[in-house]
């Protein structure tokens, strides 16, 4: 877990709470450069000012390859709530300061449940697990031998299970905008990953006709 904090905010209390809740936060003050380079399961952005602090930091996060699909929580001043609108696409959860410890605990639990990542940073969805630290993907604890692009594709989808990704979106996020191979590349790689998942799990990578792909719903 990474805490990005405006140094004037209540960092110490937040860190103490997180540790008591069983998390292992790494704190990075946002007046400090450069950005640290871990691959956290969750990022909490503690901010006093949405417009000049939370927004640019969140956009920068979403642009970073490694952090693009990591769940992001905003912890902002209640007075700034009306400025949330327009940034819904950036964040996954928010809380206002002063916050209650119970609410923080509950929201983080919910978020972990939704994004399916556990404290080791392993992202889970049904039988599928992805460990961004070791780059290993497994299904039913069987390790899949993916190529790098196949891995990146799964990583993108597992970051927001249930969300439908357009093929254009997948192409630009996984392969980059300058890739000339064309949209078929996405289809080809989806098929390759399905082959590796095997017949029992191939359905996890679901085609949404005319739109794109997503991870299929699984029952808990």
């Amino acid at each position: 877990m990474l805490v990005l904090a405006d140094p004037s905010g209540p960092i110490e209390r937040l860190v103490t709470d997180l540790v008591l809740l069983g998390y292992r936060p790494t704190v990075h003050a946002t007046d400090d450069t450069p950005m640290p380079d871990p691959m956290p399961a969750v990022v909490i952005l503690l901010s006093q000012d949405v417009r000049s602090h939370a927004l640019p930091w969140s956009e920068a996060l979403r642009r970073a390859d490694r952090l693009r699909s990591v769940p992001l929580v905003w912890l902002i001043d209640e007075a700034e709530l009306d400025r949330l609108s327009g940034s819904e696409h950036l964040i996954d959860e928010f809380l206002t300061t002063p916050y209650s410890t119970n609410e923080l605990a509950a929201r983080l639990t919910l978020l972990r449940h939704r994004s399916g990542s556990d404290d080791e940073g392993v992202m889970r969805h049904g039988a599928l697990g992805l460990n961004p630290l070791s780059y290993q993907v497994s299904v039913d604890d069987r390790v899949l031998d993916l190529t790098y692009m196949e891995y990146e594709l799964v990583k993108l989808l597992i970051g927001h299970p249930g969300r439908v990704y357009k093929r254009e979106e997948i192409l630009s996020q996984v392969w980059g905008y300058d890739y000339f191979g064309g949209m078929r590349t996405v289809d080809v790689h989806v098929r390759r990953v399905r082959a590796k998942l095997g017949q029992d799990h191939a359905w996890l990578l679901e085609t949404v006709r005319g739109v794109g792909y997503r991870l299929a719903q699984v029952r808990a």
Partner: protein
Amino acid sequence: MDHDEQDFVLRTVEEREIRFIRLWFTDVLGFLKSFAIPAEELSEALDEGVGFDGSAIDGFARVQEADMIAHPDPSTFQLLPWRPAAPAVARMFCDIRTPEGRLFEGDPRAVLRRQHARAAEMGFSFYVGTEIEFFLFADSTTPEPLDVGSYFDLTPLDVGSDFRQRVIAYLEQLGMPVKDSHHEVAASQHEVDLRHADALTMADSVMTFRLAVKEVAQELGVYATFMPKPIQGAFGSGMHTHMSLFEGDRNAFFDATDIHYLSKTARSFVAGLLRHAREISAVTNQWVNSYKRLVPGYEAPVYVCWGVRNRSAMVRIPLTKPGKESACRIEYRAPDPACNPYLAFALMLAAGLRGIEREYEIPPEAENDIYAMTDVERWGADIASLPESLPEALAEMERSELVREALGEHLFEWFIANKRAEWNEHRSYVTGLELERNLPRL
């Protein structure tokens, strides 16, 4: 991006306790070459490549320029499923460079990359699917069938179906989706169809496939061969190649208004293939034995023509189902599975692109049974034959400016010299048939 890719490879090697990484490349004739490096050297290999003596590889370099550098392509990093889980073994395909850092023009992968880049300049990406046929025999000394099955036969005691299942399991673990697999027409003959991918990936896949098939055969104590015509009087093995060009998300071969749903681009592409078929034949069918497959009577193409339903045609247009534009494609039926897939795909693409560039007109579709026509009728209908032998194909190739340009001077010259030598060996060999026919009478 590149950095992450390397990181991914290095972490996986650590995580899976891989001790050796096989570096693969392909010689001019399409034989897989491999050398292993220990895991500790991988990081340096990814950064700087690994030097080797190119003069030891057929067709690579003359002795005075023997130093070559193999650069592993991290996007092809893959664990080999037929090796034990621990210690696991992984492979990567390599691009070959000169010590100065230039792509070595004699590397088949570079040849295909060049054509890919040409297609990209014209706004196209090139996709290929293959149907690969092969035989299973008891060993490599005699072509003795293991079964007497035929097309789609389901035989209970068939080592073949066990075999195909195992092959497919490996291919799945390698991320090579299989479209279909079945027993073929001839006894002991099998076919596996690989789903389309970009041509470079498909050429890598064909190389991997041939090895996977040979590995499984060895596991089951049999022998697999991609020899084009191993059994006298039986069907040969082909590698029907399905091709399409995409412009972004759009299939450039599809046109809803055309009677066969074929766009002008597709028609010119086919026209290019037809016009240059004889010239590229020495590469798509590179062995003396290849031409024993290309004879009438065994569903192999003999005449240079195209057709929609006509299964004897050299270029077949599979029916496009409504709403399935993306599947619109053309099928080139001449190549055999003993070709070098990089060079074969590169030349098929070069021929098709030439057709598009110069707006070749497609000849009329061959609707009749061309085999039933007389030579004169075919001549009248302007239907040429594919070369009947390797030397005929070589003579065509040698005159071809298209093939020379696509292969590059180095590879072109070496290929012709090597194949001439093969032919010289064969033409001076007294065969069993000659003795049988001539000795009692002459």
